[in-house]
């Protein structure tokens, strides 16, 4: 097959990235349920629905970005790529994507914390007015 090393690279990259994204978002929103219930003060149906919507958004953003950066540039079809080059390219892509995913996770955590402190503040002001 022509430039088969690049095809092998894609075949390694795609499963790793998709499984990683699914696993991370499952873990994130399993743990995020507590925050959501806290934010919506025990109204469980709204909390779970919001959680689900956030999860779908997380999937869309991250898998979309993973596919967007997949293409391996700069290697023509008549150039035979060595194993070392393939490993280095893959490590750059997978490592970069992993760091990006970590940053997204921390961003989500920040949003959870912010929502929690906002909802607490509204409780406080309500109590104060009453």
């Amino acid at each position, binding site marked *: 097959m022509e430039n088969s090393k690049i095809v092998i690279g894609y075949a390694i990259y795609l499963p790793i990235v998709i499984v990683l994204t699914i696993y*991370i978002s499952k*873990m*994130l929103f*399993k*743990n*995020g*349920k*507590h*925050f959501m219930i*806290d934010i919506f003060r025990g109204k469980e149906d709204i909390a779970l629905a919001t959680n689900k919507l956030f999860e779908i958004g997380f999937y869309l953003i991250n898998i979309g970005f993973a596919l967007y950066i997949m293409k391996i540039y700069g290697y023509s079809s008549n150039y035979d790529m060595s*194993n*070392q080059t393939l*490993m*280095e*390219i893959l*490590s*750059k892509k*997978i*490592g*970069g*994507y*992993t*760091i*990006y*995913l*970590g*940053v997204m*996770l*921390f961003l989500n*955590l920040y949003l959870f914390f912010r929502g929690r*402190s906002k909802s*607490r503040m509204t409780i*406080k002001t309500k109590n104060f007015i009453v």
Partner: protein
Amino acid sequence: MNYNIITYYIYLPIISFIMVKIGWLFYKNGEVFLLNLFHNNAALVKSINNLLLIGYYLTNIGYAIITISYWENLTSAIEMINSLSKTIGKIILLLAIMHYNNIFWLRQLNNSKLLNH
């Protein structure tokens, strides 16, 4: 198999072992501080702790993997050992700096009233 590929095969297990071990230790010992910060709300603390652990793994292992793509070209065994020790040492030093940064912030948060209302 040239020297670079051998180096990668040595480097990846070592660094992932170190990171997983350190992350696990922090996860175990940090829970007490978080419980203190969030007034013993155990369910919330457990999920916060889990999320912090996952974030730690993602960013650090991602960084460890990405260093492979910037590795210099190696031609002998001695160069291999030199570059391995240099890279692993750099990553461990970075971990140490981040660790002290974490301790500092835990102290600040414990003293301030940011989360305690």
